[in-house]
C-alpha cells in the first residue's frame, strides 16, 4: 500500500515484513529511527516472534547477530559511520563464517573531524569485508532491496548490507509502496540455515585454519560472493514478477545505454542526476546516468558492457581514498581497462555537502568543454581559494616536498612555478 512515510519508518516496516527473529542494534544517527521503529514493533507484538537486543555497542550488535544467525535465526541489524568501523572486526567474521545477516547502513561520513552528515566514507572503508553491498537510490528502493537482501543473503549464506544515504533518505518523507505481509511471505521462504548450532547435530563452527588451507578458504569465499552477480539479477526479476515493480539488480541506466557521456553514481544522488540528464538532453546533450546498485561483488563485465560505447565517463562518488583518490573510479577504470574511455573522478557530497543540479550542470559543462582533464581528481563545489591558501601556507614550510606543489597545481593554483 502506498503511503507518505519517512524512509526509516518504511525500511523498519519492510524489515518487519521479512519476519526477522533477532534484531540487535545500537543507536547512531542517522540509522536510529529504523531500529527505534523496530523495537516498537517488537514491543507491541506486531513483529513476533522476534527478540530485540539493545546492546552496548555496534561491536556487540553485530556479534550478537553472528550468534543469532549461527543459531539459525533470521537476523537483522543496522548502523552507520563510526558504528560500522566499530563493527569492522565482526564484519569480516560474519562473512568469513558465511552467516546471512542483513544490515542497513545509513551512510554517513567518518571523523575526524566528527561529522554526522551523509556521504559514503563508512561503507567504502569496509568495501572489501566480504559482505554483499547494495545501494538504494530512493526509499522505495530501500524498502524493496531489504526484501531482496534477505532472499539473497539466505540463498548464498552470505551477509548483505543495504546502503541508504543518511538523512537524505532515512529522514525524507515521501511516498512509498509497502508490500503486504502475504506478498513478502510468498516471496521470502522461511530461513533454512546451511549450518546451525543444533544439539541434535553438533558441529564446530569457526575452526582455526592454518596456511595449509587458508588460501583455499578465501578463494571459496570469493567464488561464493561472485555467485551474487548471477543471483542478484535473478532475484530482482523474481521481485518484479512478484511485486510488479522493478527494483535492485546490479546496475540501472537512465534513460538508456549508449550515450556519449555517462555519469556513474551510487545511491540517492542518482535522482538529482537524472533530473540534470533530462535537462541536458532537452538541450541535445547526449548524456546518461549509470547507477550502481550492487557495488560488491563488483559487476565488472556488466559495467564494461554498459560503458564501452561511451566517449567519456564521469564517476561521481561520495567518498575517496586519501592518498590515491576515487574508489568507485578505480573500480570503473578496472572495468574499462583496455578501452579508450576517459574516466573523470569527481568526489562530491562529502560530510553532507548538498549536490545541487547547478553544480552538476557546471561539472558537466566543464567536462564537455574539456576544462577538466580525465584522471584528475576533482572535488565538486570545492572552495579552491581556501584550499589554495592553506596549501600555500603549508608549502612554505621546509617539510613540504614536490607532491604538495602537485596538489597545488591540481587545485588550480599557479603559485607552483614560483620557487
Amino acid at each position, binding site marked *: 500500500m502506498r503511503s507518505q512515510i*519517512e524512509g526509516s519508518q518504511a525500511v523498519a516496516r519492510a524489515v518487519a515484513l521479512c519476519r526477522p527473529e533477532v534484531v540487535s542494534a545500537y543507536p547512531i544517527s542517522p540509522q536510529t529511527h529504523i531500529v527505534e521503529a523496530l523495537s516498537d514493533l517488537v514491543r507491541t507484538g506486531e513483529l513476533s516472534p522476534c527478540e530485540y537486543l539493545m546492546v552496548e555497542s555496534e561491536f556487540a550488535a553485530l556479534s550478537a547477530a553472528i550468534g543469532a544467525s549461527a543459531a539459525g535465526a533470521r537476523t537483522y541489524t543496522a548502523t552507520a559511520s563510526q558504528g560500522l568501523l566499530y563493527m569492522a572486526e565482526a564484519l569480516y567474521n560474519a562473512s568469513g563464517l558465511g552467516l546471512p545477516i542483513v544490515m542497513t547502513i545509513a551512510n554517513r561520513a567518518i571523523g575526524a573531524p566528527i561529522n554526522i552528515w551523509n556521504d559514503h566514507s563508512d561503507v567504502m572503508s569496509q568495501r572489501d569485508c566480504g559482505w554483499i553491498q547494495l545501494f538504494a537510490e530512493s526509499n522505495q528502493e530501500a524498502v524493496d532491496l531489504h526484501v531482496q537482501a534477505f532472499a539473497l543473503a539466505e540463498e548464498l549464506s552470505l551477509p548483505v548490507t543495504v546502503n541508504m544515504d543518511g538523512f537524505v533518505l532515512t529522514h525524507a*518523507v*515521501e511516498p512509498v509502496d509497502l508490500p503486504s505481509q502475504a506478498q513478502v511471505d510468498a516471496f521470502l521462504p522461511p530461513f533454512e540455515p546451511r549450518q546451525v548450532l543444533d544439539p541434535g547435530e553438533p558441529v564446530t563452527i569457526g575452526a582455526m585454519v592454518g596456511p595449509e588451507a587458508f588460501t583455499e578458504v578465501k578463494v571459496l569465499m570469493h567464488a561464493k560472493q561472485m555467485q551474487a552477480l548471477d543471483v542478484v539479477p535473478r532475484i530482482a526479476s523474481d521481485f518484479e514478477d512478484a511485486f510488479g515493480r522493478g527494483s535492485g539488480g546490479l546496475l540501472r541506466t537512465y534513460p538508456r545505454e549508449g550515450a556519449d557521456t555517462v555519469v556513474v553514481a551510487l545511491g540517492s544522488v542518482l535522482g538529482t542526476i537524472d533530473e540534470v540528464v533530462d535537462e541536458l538532453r532537452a538541450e541535445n546533450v547526449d548524456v546518461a546516468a549509470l547507477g550502481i546498485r550492487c557495488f560488491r561483488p563488483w559487476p565488472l563485465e556488466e559495467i564494461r558492457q554498459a560503458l564501452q560505447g561511451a566517449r567519456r565517463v564521469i564517476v561521481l562518488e561520495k567518498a575517496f581514498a586519501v592518498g590515491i583518490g576515487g574508489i568507485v573510479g578505480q573500480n570503473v577504470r578496472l572495468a574499462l581497462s583496455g578501452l579508450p574511455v576517459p574516466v573523470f573522478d569527481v568526489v562530491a557530497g562529502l560530510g553532507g555537502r548538498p549536490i545541487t543540479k547547478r553544480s552538476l550542470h557546471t561539472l558537466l559543462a566543464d567536462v564537455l568543454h574539456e576544462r577538466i582533464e580525465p584522471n584528475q581528481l576533482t572535488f565538486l563545489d570545492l572552495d579552491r581559494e581556501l584550499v589554495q591558501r592553506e596549501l600555500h601556507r603549508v608549502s612554505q614550510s621546509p617539510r613540504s616536498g614536490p607532491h604538495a606543489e602537485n596538489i597545488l597545481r591540481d587545485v588550480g593554483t599557479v603559485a607552483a612555478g614560483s620557487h
Partner: protein
Amino acid sequence: MFQVRIHGRGGQGVVTAAELLSVAAFLEGREAQAFPTFGSERTGAPVVAFCRIDDSVIRVREPITEPDALIVQDPTLLHQVDLFAGLSDDGYLLLNTGRSFDDLGLGAFVERFDVDRCVTVPATEIAREHLGRPLPNAALLGAFAALTGQVSVDSVAAAIRERFSGPTAEGNVTAAEHAHARVLQAGRASHA
C-alpha cells in the same frame, strides 16, 4: 513543482510542518517530498525544513534554494539568517507574527512581492488559544493552504489527524482552520 521552505527554531515543529504538508499533498493524490536540514540542532537553534509538491515523481534531492513559498515560524530569525534567499518576486511569504510587515520594518522589503502573496498570521497566539501551547506550525499550514491553494485545509486537517490524535489533533485542526479562515478574510479585505 511547488517548493516550500520552512524556517523556525528547534522545538517549533518545523520538520513536522514540512512532513504534514507533504502528507496533505499526498492525500490529494500528488507527489510530495519533505525533508529537514539535517543536523544536530537542539531546541531553540534555527532549523530549516523543505517540502516539494508535484504531479510527477520527485527525483531531485537537493535542498530547496529557490522556494516558491517561504514559511517563517519565528520572526526573530529575521535578524539571524538570510530568510528570503532565493525567494522569487512571485513567491509566497507567510510570516508568523501578530504585527505587520511594516511594524517589523519589512515594509520596504516586501514591496517587491505581490501583496496578495505576503501574509502575516499570529499563528502562535492562535495555537495558544486553540491548542493551549505555542506551537504555530498547524496554524501556519492552515494559513498556507489559504495563501497558496496548493493543498486544501481539509487535507491539512486530515494530515494532522493522521499524525496526531485526541485533543492535540483537534486543537491543531481548529488552529489550522482558524488561521485558514483568517487569511481568506484578510485576502478579501485587501481586495475590498
